């Protein structure tokens, strides 16, 4: 008797489909609901000005990062444990590092330059007015 032919699923065969419970409708639904709450949460925090500005800024950035992770895990099947996903994670971490360096570095440099720059005529006028000269 010949053994039954192995019918592999295409996505599993190329290693992009993590084993259940990852690849089910439930995971996509959880990801969607979670992202929805995180989005609405950020929105409500800002529109109702729940915290002071700096705290608020930190909160919405944290919520955005959580939503990034939620979407990576639930929509993009991250963290399934196959060999391919470890390499994807490495590339992601490298790219995030570059992003932080580019954005953070640019902000640091430009804010520093702004502080060292002479005020423009308009800025000088409004300063003098505020000092009642």
């Amino acid at each position: 008797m010949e053994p039954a032919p192995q019918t592999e699923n295409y996505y599993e065969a190329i290693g992009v489909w993590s084993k259940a419970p990852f690849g089910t409708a439930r995971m996509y639904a959880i990801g969607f609901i979670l992202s929805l709450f995180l989005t609405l949460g950020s929105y409500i925090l800002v529109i109702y000005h729940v915290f002071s500005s700096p705290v608020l800024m930190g909160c919405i950035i944290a919520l955005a990062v959580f939503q990034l992770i939620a979407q990576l895990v639930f929509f993009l099947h991250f963290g399934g444990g196959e060999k391919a996903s470890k390499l994807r994670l490495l590339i992601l971490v490298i790219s995030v590092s570059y992003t932080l360096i580019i954005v953070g570095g640019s902000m640091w440099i430009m804010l520093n330059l702004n502080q060292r720059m002479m005020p423009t005529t308009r800025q000088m006028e409004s300063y003098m007015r505020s000092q009642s000269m």
Partner: protein
Amino acid sequence: MLTEAERHEDQTTIFGFWVYLMTDALLFASLFAIYAVLHNTSFGSPTGAELFNAPFVLAETIILLASSFTCGLGILSAYKDSKGGVISWFSATWLLGLAFLVMELNEFSSLIRAGHSYASNGFLSSYFTLVGTHGLHITIGLIWIAIMIASVAFRGLTRSTKRRLMLASLFWHFLDIIWIFIFTLVYLMAFK
């Protein structure tokens, strides 16, 4: 079903596309950096807080999120070899994506008509470039998804169409992730 060579080739293609998406993320990183530097250079003209419409942007965000969800369900249908499911869910994705694009174009055109164009000041230049580049990616994504729907309708779910559906869905999910950051760092930051 797949030979070892075919398996390796497709796995490599999908990984390569992921690397491309990371370089695209670096492109957006530069645009974010520019916006970070220029976002308060409106020099007396209306700022983001005055120009942006919060509920409208929230609606856009939810619509794009929903399209990412339907895209996921479309890939699930491809996993289950359901050709009808793929066409239905990817069509839903396409319609939601189109709604997002129409809303965004509406937003841009009303800003420009009111005199706040990308040439008005540094803040608006950087805003239009960042959000506009995302919108351009969305447009390309919509063209790609439309082609995929036609491809699956005429050729069915073959090895090629399944691979390409995966790539298109990776692109679409990536765009939603970038939008999370645009929504947070451009729109919500303006209102804080």
